[in-house]
């Protein structure tokens, strides 16, 4: 009936396309982005993250800091004009090593997020949406994982896979999805009962459509916020693992540098490796924290309009 009336009316009254210039409108993400730009601390943090990323990419391509392993001066020479952060025991430039360490740190952040986020989101969404036995199984699985001390899990993974960067990615990736999974599960459960999802069902939308087209876009902001915080946790974890000697092998990372400093500080008074690596780590971790908080403020619809 509606169709018939529409056909009749349209025939009578050919729509003049020009009168329907559809207005463009800002999406919620555009809106959030604009709010983010107004936050000066967030912009500074984003610039820092961008800068570290560029350094990491250039370093991994071998354009900068490729010569970290060459002897450039005497052993343990203090910071000077030619060696900004001094040299280490083998006479290698500490500043170059820190740059190479940036590459290690950023790659750990990136690859653990690439493992943890898909696993966390998919399991969380399935568990929250389908409920019942599936939910119970997934919840059982992640509570089991989270009840094993993660350091044990990481040690066993690196024992199986052999020490090195890949083991660190896998170890951190497979242990850090649990918190995200929990968050997503809760959010999906909340959205599942909203009217707009029911409306999608009433319109004949399949379960997959309800989940992926309607619910997931409404929880993406949580994933973004979580990713920025996950990133810096991974960086810190890598430092700790390398410090404990189960992390990165045969290449410099901030963790191994801090580990080296254990022996250098006492007696010899060599402080530059420790200070350099710590400051490099401190800045990026702080930047990610500020960015994560700013993202939460900008993306959380509940806070919208309050500032």
């Amino acid at each position: 009936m509606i169709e018939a009336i529409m056909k009749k009316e349209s025939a009578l009254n050919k729509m003049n396309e020009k009168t329907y210039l559809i207005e463009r409108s800002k999406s919620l993400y555009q809106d959030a982005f604009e709010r983010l730009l107004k936050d000066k601390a967030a912009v500074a943090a984003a610039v820092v993250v961008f800068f570290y990323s560029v350094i990491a990419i250039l370093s991994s391509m071998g354009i900068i800091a490729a010569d970290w392993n060459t002897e450039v001066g005497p052993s343990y020479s203090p910071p000077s004009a030619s060696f900004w952060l001094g040299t280490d025991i083998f006479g290698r430039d500490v500043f170059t090593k820190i740059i190479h360490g940036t590459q290690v740190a950023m790659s750990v952040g990136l690859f653990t997020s690439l493992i943890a986020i898909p696993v966390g989101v998919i399991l969380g969404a399935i568990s929250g949406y389908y409920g019942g036995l599936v939910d119970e199984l997934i919840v059982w699985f992640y509570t089991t994982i989270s009840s094993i001390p993660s350091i044990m899990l990481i040690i066993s993974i690196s024992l199986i896979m052999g020490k090195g960067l890949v083991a660190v990615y896998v170890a951190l990736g497979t242990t850090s999805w649990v918190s995200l999974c929990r968050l997503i599960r809760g959010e999906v459960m909340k959205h599942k009962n909203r009217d707009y999802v029911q409306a999608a069902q009433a319109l004949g939308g399949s379960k997959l459509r309800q989940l992926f087209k309607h619910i997931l876009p409404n929880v993406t902001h949580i994933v973004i916020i979580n990713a920025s915080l996950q990133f810096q946790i991974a960086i810190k974890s890598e430092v700790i693992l390398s410090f404990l000697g189960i992390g990165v092998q045969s290449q410099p990372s901030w963790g191994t540098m801090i580990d080296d400093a254990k022996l250098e500080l006492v007696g010899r008074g060599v402080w530059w490796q420790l200070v350099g690596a710590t400051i490099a780590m401190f800045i990026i971790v702080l930047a990610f924290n500020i960015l994560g908080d700013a993202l939460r403020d900008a993306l959380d619809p509940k806070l919208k309009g309050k500032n």
Partner: protein
Amino acid sequence: MSLLLDVKNLNIEFHTQENIVKAVNNVSFSIKEGQTIGLVGESGSGKSVTSLACMRLIPTPPGKITSGEILFQGEDLLKKSQEEMRKIRGNDISMIFQEPMTSLNPVFKVGEQISEALMLHKAMTKKQAWARTIELLDQVGIPNPSQKAHAYPHEMSGGQKQRVMIAMAISCEPKLLIADEPTTALDVTIQKQVLELMFKLQEEYKMGMLFITHDLGVIADIADEVVVMYRSEIMERNLTQEIFKKPTHPYTKGLLACRPSLDKNPKRLLTVSDFMTEQGAEKEINKELLHPYEKSFSFDEEKNPVLLEVKDLKTYFPIKGGLFGQTIADVKAVDGVSFQLRKGKTLGLVGESGCGKTTLGRSILRLVEPTQGSVIYDGIDITSLDAPAMREMRSRMQIIFQDPYSSLNPRMTIAETLLEPMDIHGIGENKKQKLDKAKWLMNKVGLNANQLNRYPHEFSGGQRQRISIARALTLNPEFIICDESVSALDVSVQAQVLNLLLDLQEEFGLTYIFISHDLSVVNFISDEVGVMNAGKIVEMNNADEVYHRPQQEYTRSLLEAIPKGIPNEILF
């Protein structure tokens, strides 16, 4: 009687990132001791902001009181320090909010929350405060008060929580009570009890009262004077009797006329725009619009065949319990409902919250799987359809929800929202055809088609509800369930949406089930009315019979609870 509260030339602005919004513009009114003033207006008219200003509770920034005076017993509240205000709040002036669910703290017992205020303001000992609390709970009509004082808010019903809020508000014997839509969230029968209670307490304590509402009908019995606000300004103020008898401002006339009555209504409800132009000038009202419309309850077997037949429908929700989570009992949300609905007709379902009317609606559409019984739609029992067949069927039956804020996906533009169902069911040959249909529908529901790329948050509640209606129409359905579809809207917007639903029904021959707790709305829109209680339909007949000759005690009690507010003879 001396003046209790005197608001003089109050101006309040809100500073947003883009611009400055004037929320209250040159508002003046006064309340004498023991007097009740009703402050009426739609959402966004500035009535709540005015009341919050009297408590000095405007969030600053973004809000700012730019000029004016609020004299309370002769002293200007705007000149007081926050410390002095804290002593006044709760003690001399107290407030009751709309949502009893969120205004009580869920982690404390209700008795503790009341006695806390007493110990703070009246310097009582814990024991004295507790004794007084029980006295207060008794006074507001909580049964078994000494026991109920130990209950947590979630253990009480909505009406009881609102009573607790009232007990808390009067605990320090305030001179002024501000009630911000205290009964809007409650069922009619509970609303009546709460209104009577407030009136009684006001007499007893000789309080002044500022009663804020969007519904003129609610305050007719209780207010001495009425102040009507619209777009941040006072439109009219007068004695209650006078306002109802001789409204002078066109906006007030519109407000009085747009509320459907329990008696005969015009064919379409009048709206504020029938009385007033966009600029606020008075319009000559077309007398024909006022003419009461005689509904025809007859039907034509040819034109109105039986479209939907529900037979002994039952929907139970299991209560899990015990050691192994086995089902120990059932909540019988829908307990054996049967009825027939003819094509092109409207069945109204009324009942109080929790009576099962929403579950019934959703069971018919199989959004909730019914436990037993059958739903026969156009000759097909849809309870036995498999998933693909059911999906096919869904294009013929649709639903419009209550809350216009949660029924649209906030991350999708209106175009995406309207095109999605057409994509699912393969309606329209190409994108352009689908878009044309979306534009056509936008015009049909009275919206501007060039707003298709906007997001839901850019629309008002009434506009969102129109979008929901457009979405329901995308699949060319014959049958729509309206689940409290106008309950969240202001009365003036409600009238527009009801008119739209009737226009669409007339044009497209739609069949409706209209679910509502508001009996007058159901009376206006329905041909047949079913009264629900505890999962069963207790009475069902054509609208005139149910409203004028109710057979059941329950129906009668529902009808009596409606505020008699606006007598029809005054209106027409």
